[in-house]
């Protein structure tokens, strides 16, 4: 009963808030996105929203993924509410609802389809699908909201970035700024590279490592030098073989790198993929890769830690990756060889977005809040790390240490907002964000950057090929099946599932997009 009264009051108030919200608070941020404008934001219209302190705060509900709800989230929410009230005279009641990655898509499907009221949700191309939600009309277009309520946020990223997240001409989500381009690489435990005289600077493609791996295997029969797991290998290696998937590796449809004509190919019919499958199968037979790699969970990290593997590939080379990979290999020293240029495609920009719900009662406030999350470092770090002293400690060099036992350690900076405002974690180099920005700036842009595929005409075919890829793709990528026998079967299955129709539809849309540009 109490809850209901509260809801009614909240409902009445939201109307009021929406009106006063339109008048705008926090309009007066500086255009410099990196300097959090703590003092300069007491705004002209402050008195209007200021009256909100006496009233009921506007509640903002934010759904996000991660490892699950944090035990002490209430403290963090309260700290954020207080900070927003003190600094921006924004009287909101933030509710963070965190679910784990595995259940997030399902939970969001319930929340969205049931028409539940909420304000912001995290969405992406790989979890809680952005395009599907836009097709369902789950989000509202943000173009005008951004211009009116979040000019700093709008200015913080290049137009090409905003263009890339557009669907049918409108922006439906705010990308979280972070490392954008992909650059495929291979990582090798240094001890072995040194012992067998491997010069990593000469390694330009994966096959260059075969002799080295064979030598390692000869002396250490218990080691499977090259790590592979149920996550497959090719999705981490597409650029290195010269392909750019349009929706994702599992769905037929790629461009070839450097192809000006933007012809769409079925990747599973290409020579590039076939060669990769052949090599992996050979490596399994030579004992360089586990024959049951496709059943290995946890991305083979426990095996890497235990010293069963000495090399692995990954999709994105980025500043700070040394620490991560070294931890994966049980804190051994590692060396790297990049296998492609840093490359930027549409998919990299829809990998983490925050969208405003169709059911939000006060989208302007939500937009303003997102603006601050992305531009105010203090607010952002409250979200990422919690309250200083309670949830994390600052070390002498300015880096922070946090752990799960303190009750708040979501570890999802890249999901929440502009990662360049994040405090440095222990072990991260001070120039990590500068370097990342430089890498973002230096990336080779895809010719199709900004093109997004509308899958509605081929939904049924996409469902069928997704299942076919799961059945054959990963086992071929990890060498567990003989391509001579299985690849034709796979191609057959794809044909029967309507791969050609998908390719034709993609080509059609690409051509239309090209001519409209």
């Amino acid at each position, binding site marked *: 009963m109490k809850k209901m009264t509260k809801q009614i009051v909240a409902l009445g108030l939201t109307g009021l808030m929406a009106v006063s919200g339109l008048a705008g608070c926090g309009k007066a941020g500086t255009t410099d996105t990196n300097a959090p404008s703590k003092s300069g934001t007491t705004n002209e219209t402050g008195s209007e929203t200021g009256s909100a302190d006496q009233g009921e705060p506007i509640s903002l509900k934010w759904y996000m993924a991660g490892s*699950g709800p944090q035990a002490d989230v209430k403290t963090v929410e309260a700290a954020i509410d207080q900070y927003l009230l003190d600094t921006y005279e924004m009287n909101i009641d933030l509710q963070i609802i965190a679910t784990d990655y595995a259940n997030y898509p399902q939970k969001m499907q319930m929340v969205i389809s049931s028409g539940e009221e909420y304000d912001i949700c995290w969405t992406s191309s790989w979890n809680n699908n952005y395009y599907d939600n836009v097709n369902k009309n789950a989000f509202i277009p943000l173009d005008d909201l951004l211009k009116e309520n979040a000019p700093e946020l709008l200015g913080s990223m290049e137009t090409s970035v905003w263009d890339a997240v557009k669907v049918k001409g409108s922006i439906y989500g705010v990308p979280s700024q972070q490392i954008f381009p992909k650059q495929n690489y291979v990582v090798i435990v240094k001890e072995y590279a040194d012992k067998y005289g491997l010069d990593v600077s000469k390694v330009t493609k994966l096959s260059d490592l075969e002799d080295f791996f064979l030598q390692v295997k000869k002396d250490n029969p218990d080691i499977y030098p090259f790590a592979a797991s149920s996550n497959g290998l090719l999705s981490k290696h597409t650029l290195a073989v010269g392909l750019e998937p349009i929706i994702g590796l599992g769905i037929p449809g790629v461009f070839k790198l450097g192809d000006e004509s933007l012809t769409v190919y079925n990747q599973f019919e290409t020579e590039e993929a076939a060669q990769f499958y052949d090599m992996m199968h050979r490596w399994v037979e030579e004992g360089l890769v586990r024959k049951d790699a496709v059943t290995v969970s946890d991305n083979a990290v426990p095996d890497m*830690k235990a010293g069963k593997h000495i090399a692995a590939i990954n999709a994105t080379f980025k500043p700070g990756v040394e620490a991560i990979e070294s931890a994966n290999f049980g804190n051994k020293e590692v060396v790297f060889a990049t296998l492609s240029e840093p490359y930027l495609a549409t998919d990299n920009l829809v990998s983490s977005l925050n969208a405003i719900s169709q059911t939000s009662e006060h989208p302007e406030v939500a937009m303003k809040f997102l603006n601050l999350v992305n531009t105010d470092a203090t607010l952002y770090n409250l979200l990422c790390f919690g309250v200083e002293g309670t949830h994390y400690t600052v070390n002498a060099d300015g880096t922070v240490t946090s752990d799960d036992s303190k009750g708040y350690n979501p570890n999802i900076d890249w999901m929440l907002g502009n990662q360049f405002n994040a405090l440095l974690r222990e072990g991260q180099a001070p120039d990590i964000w500068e370097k990342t920005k430089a890498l973002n700036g230096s990336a080779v842009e895809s010719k199709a950057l900004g093109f997004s595929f509308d899958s509605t005409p081929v939904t049924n075919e996409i469902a069928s090929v997704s299942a076919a890829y799961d059945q054959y793709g990963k086992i071929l990528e990890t060498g567990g099946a003989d391509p001579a026998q299985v690849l034709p079967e796979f191609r057959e299955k794809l044909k029967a599932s309507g791969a050609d129709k998908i390719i034709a539809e993609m080509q059609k849309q690409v051509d239309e997009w090209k001519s409209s540009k």
Partner: protein
Amino acid sequence: MVQSKQEKIANKVITVALILLALFCVVPILYILSASLSDEIALTREGYSLIPRGFSLEAYKYILESPKSIISAYGVTILVTLAGTAVSLIVTTMLAYVIARKDFRLGRVFAFMIFFSMLFNGGLVPTYIMVTKYFHLKDSLWALMLPYIILPWHVFLMKGFLSDIPTSLIEAAKIDGAGEIKSFFRIIVPISKPALATVGLFIAFTYWNDWYQSMLYIDSSNINSLQFYLYRIMNNIQYLSTSMQAGNITIDIANLPSETARMALCILAAGPMLIIFPFFQKYFVKGLTVGAVKG
């Protein structure tokens, strides 16, 4: 009863066969127990065995390091299980008794209705809408408790047991002048103890093993159930190691709980129910119904 030699041999054979079957059921959990007590690196290197690889309590230490979540999860699960089972058992038994009564006019209609609901449901979204928008149960313990008060499966199971009650017994109660409700509580419930114990146990297990309702309806971290706590960790890791993530995002898998910690969680989640089990067993007594008729 005097046992013949033949019967003694038969008993031995049965015992041996059951021992084998029991081992078949128990050995896997011994592997899990042993894994939870193993050293992580040694476990990955050498694989599972019945004797822990390089004995280590690290996994349990890791879980109990921040006991807040797990203690509150235990609390929630125990509370929901106790209260839910009590209410569900009464409501289920009443409904089951009604459809078990062959002389009740609407018995078959009700049975069909229950069966129909077992197969057809509107799907998750409408249920979600009802629970959140109309029942206003989101983020409350009620959301965990109410969905399982009536499960068609339990009703039919109970009906199966109650159908055994001899009609003469009900007739006798009627002659005594007791109304249906009175005779249900005074006569039917006391003589159906084995049935109540069995179905009650199943209901308790349903509550104990449930994670799904928590996933859908609970947003606050302090009302998560134990199974959801476990399930979340297990499935998250499984998801992250099989789903294709966008390439430029790296989710730090190295920081997630190790395999040994996951096994330890499994032991902690299953343990209490196995201890409770024998308590229910004292109600499995032969021939209660008949004794009541005679008495």
